[in-house]
Every structure is written in structure tokens, then in C-alpha cells.
């Protein structure tokens, strides 16, 4: 690790099944992107790789390795030679892989054939930034061992991707606490644009936009939270929970982004505009 970028972490698919002990799942924020990067180098999909918000990472390889980049498209170079995303890259021993900053999207992923072999905690190598479990955030000078997780070679050498055109639309299921808000609040959420603020990380994204008005005051007794939950603190502006969200919380959740849209949500960067739509309705509007 020569340059650690802007808070790069080791991630796999996390620690499912431990929420009853207060341990969240964590893992890659864009799970599909890490899975793809792993498939491209012949790893199991849950092998540990790097999650790199806004790229900016440089790695020096002591040994030859096969790597793949996925997620937000970053320019990248092996010893100064440009290389592309979503395809296996042969990196010779002694070479440097430099990853630039993506033009759009937020989180880039790097898989290395064999997987990153940092010590597992509770069955996972993911860094849970909220709970403080798993490896520390990466720092320059750190050595990342490569394991032996590879199981074969992929059938494809390149994974094309259809880029989204137009605005980022996230479909939501109302509730569980939509009844804590005025009927107008859900219409506002699904009718008005919300902007991702700089107060965003792996725990969640604080959004800026019209206030969602409460019909009831006070707080709930703590209840279980899920990724994609739109929790509304007293400010009335929602927080969209991502991979390291708290296991329980006391602010009401007006609606939850459906699982299929969560990877796209994790690629929204500060300044991006989100459009929420009700799942299962052609116009995406309640009422």
C-alpha cells in the first residue's frame, strides 16, 4: 500500500446473522461490484478486496498478481500503462498499480486473485467503521497479504456494464413508521429531489431536501434497522443507511430503499441528486 486514498478499507460480504448480538453485517457497500471483481479473478464472490471511496490508491506488488477493478470507473495504470475496469489485470512482481479518481460514482473495488488474507473477525475480514470491528482503515506503508481463495478461472474476460443514463431513481417500500409522519411527508419524499451531502460515509448518507413532517413527536423504543432505511431525525431531513448502519435505532423510518437499488445508492456521491419512487406504482407516487 503506497497511497491509501480517502479512507480505503478491506471489505468482503460481511457478518450476516449476528445482529441479535449487536453486530451489524457491514461488508462492501456496493456488494454487486465486489462480487463482480472477485468473479473476474476467479475468487469466490465473498473474498476480501479493497473498497476505495473516490479511488486515489496506489499499490506496489511484491509478487505478481491478477487483479480486477469494478464499481465506480476509475482511470488506472500499471507502471504508467493505462488499464481498464471490469477485466482481469496481470500485475508483474515489483509493479505499481495506481488508481485515479472516478468521474462519476463513489466507490471503486479491487479484487486480487486469492483474496486479501488479513485476519478475520467473527468470520469476516470486513471493516465495520461504526462498530470498530475488523481491520483498521488502510494506511500508507501497510502490507496486505494475498491468500489462496481462488477456485478457478472465470468464463468471461470482460464484464460489460450498461451505464445509467438520467437521474438516479431509488424505489422505496413505505414504512415501517410512515404512520409517524403526515401523509404529505411520503408524497414529498417520492416527489421532490434529495441531494447527498458531504456528511456521508459507510454508515449512511445525510440527505438535503424538503423537510419530512412528523405527525407524532418523541422517539421510538430502539428497534431493528436495515440497510436502505430512510431514518428521519428531528431535523426532518432523512439519513439513508448503508453497510455499517447501526443495528438498532430510535428515530422513525419513513420508508426503506428496496434491496435491488442499494448498490446504486452506495455509488451516490456528495452533490448527487436522488429521486425516490414508491415500489409497485407506475408513477412512483403515493395516494
Amino acid at each position, binding site marked *: 500500500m503506497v497511497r491509501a486514498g480517502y479512507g480505503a478499507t478491506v471489505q468482503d460480504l460481511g457478518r450476516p446473522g449476528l445482529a*441479535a448480538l449487536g453486530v451489524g453485517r457491514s461488508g462492501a457497500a456496493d456488494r454487486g461490484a465486489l462480487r463482480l471483481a472477485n468473479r473476474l479473478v476467479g475468487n469466490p464472490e465473498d473474498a476480501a478486496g479493497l473498497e476505495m471511496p473516490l479511488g486515489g490508491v496506489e499499490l506496489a506488488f511484491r509478487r505478481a498478481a491478477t487483479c480486477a477493478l469494478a464499481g465506480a470507473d476509475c482511470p488506472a495504470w500499471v507502471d504508467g500503462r493505462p488499464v481498464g475496469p471490469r477485466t482481469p489485470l496481470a500485475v508483474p512482481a515489483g509493479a505499481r498499480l495506481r488508481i485515479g479518481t472516478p468521474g462519476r460514482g463513489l466507490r471503486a473495488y479491487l479484487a486480487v486473485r486469492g483474496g486479501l488474507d488479513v485476519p478475520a473477525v*467473527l468470520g469476516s475480514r470486513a471493516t465495520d467503521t461504526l462498530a470498530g470491528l475488523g481491520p483498521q482503515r488502510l494506511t500508507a506503508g501497510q502490507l496486505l497479504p494475498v491468500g489462496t481463495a481462488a477456485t478457478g478461472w472465470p468464463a468471461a474476460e470482460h464484464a460489460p456494464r450498461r451505464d445509467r443514463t438520467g437521474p438516479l431513481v431509488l424505489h422505496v417500500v*413505505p414504512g415501517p413508521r410512515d404512520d409517524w409522519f403526515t401523509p404529505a411527508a411520503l408524497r414529498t419524499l417520492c416527489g421532490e429531489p434529495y441531494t447527498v451531502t458531504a456528511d456521508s460515509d459507510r454508515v449512511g448518507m445525510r440527505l438535503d431536501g424538503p423537510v419530512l413532517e412528523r405527525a407524532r413527536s418523541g422517539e421510538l423504543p430502539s*428497534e*431493528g434497522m436495515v440497510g436502505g432505511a430512510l431514518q428521519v431525525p428531528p431535523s426532518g431531513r432523512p439519513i439513508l443507511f448503508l453497510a455499517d448502519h447501526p443495528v*438498532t435505532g430510535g428515530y422513525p423510518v419513513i420508508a426503506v430503499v428496496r*434491496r435491488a437499488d442499494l448498490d446504486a445508492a452506495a455509488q451516490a456521491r456528495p452533490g448527487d441528486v436522488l429521486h425516490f419512487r414508491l415500489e409497485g406504482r407506475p408513477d412512483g407516487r403515493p395516494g
Partner: protein
Amino acid sequence: MATADGTGAVRVLRCGSDAVLIEAEDAEQAQRLHAALRDAPPTGTGELVPAARTVLVRYDPSATDWQRLRAAVTALPLREAPPASAAETVVVPVRYDGPDLAEVARLAGLTERQVVERHTAGHYRVAFCGFAPGFAYLTGLDPRLRVPRRAEPRTRVPAGAVAVADEYTGVYPRTSPGGWQLLGTTDLPLWDAAADPPTRLRPGTAVRFVVAGQGGES
């Protein structure tokens, strides 16, 4: 939607595309609901996350849907919870030297000694975990010891701090920020990420507190 043994209604609320939040009438019904779902999980259900009044149930949308789960949950018989004394009991030896002991005594209108007596007299049960890995919310607190959280949370509460807030008592498993009122300290290790399970305080576990050095420790 009365359950088989005549207990009150539960509400089943959608929580995204692959979870439902089941809301019970009170903490005790929520604990019984969690036990019933753990013992007889409906088809397609996965992880359960018990909390103060609710149980979050994750499910596989290719195997079931929320309407089927609503039907299964409302038909679920809720047994009486086994008495706390019958379950595995974790005994926690405490040095009652916490910085908030005097304040808790003042708020409760008791002497510090009476606070300790009441805290060690209780039969507690882990209702749920949250806030931090292994942080167990214990119910069964003497109503006189129900005090509000501190107005200003501490930025650093040491691992092993024994604390009360609202209707709960608990032990900070690791050093973390925290707003509960600190009664004392235990040396009993409660969290070990290398162990399986990493905590002894799982939902349903019975807990007692004893004064450190006065016997009753196991």
C-alpha cells in the same frame, strides 16, 4: 389477531423488500415472540433482530412474502417465558464504585447502599443487544432505579462499566462513548471477538449482579 393463548395483538409492518418489523404490545411479549420465532421459524425467514418492543425478521423474498409472514406470525403460539432462574445464569461480580452512584441514589431517593442492594437483588434477562457489539439491554430493573440517561453522554466509558438508564441495566462490553449512569465496574470479560459466540449475554440469558468479593461468584 389474538394469539392462541389469548395474548394481545401484534402488528406486522413492512421494512423494505426483505424484512418485516413485528411490533408487540410490550417488552415481555416481544421477548416471547422472539423466542417463538427462534424455536419455530416460519418458512423463508432468516435473521431475527429483537429490540425493546419489536422483532425484526429478515426473509428471503424468493421463498416467502410479507403477507404470508404476517399470517404465520399472527398464528404463532406464544409460550410463557421460562423463569429467569431456570435459564443459564451469568453472574457478574461488581465493584460498586461508579462515578454516577451518588447521582443515581439522589435521583432514586435512596442511599448508595440501598442502590447497591436493589441492583444486586434483581433477576435480569437479556432482552436484546444493540448500540454496540455485545451491548446487552437487561430487563428486570427495580422500578426505583429507573433513572434518565445523563444529559451529557461521556465520550469514553471503560469496558466493564455497569450502568443503568431508563428501564434497563447493562455492562459496557468494550470501551465506547455512552450516556448511561455508571454504578460500578466488573472485571468479568463479556466480549471476546475471537470466541464463538463472542458474548455470553445473548437474548434470553439470565443475569445476576453480585458485590465483588462477597461470594456467589461463579
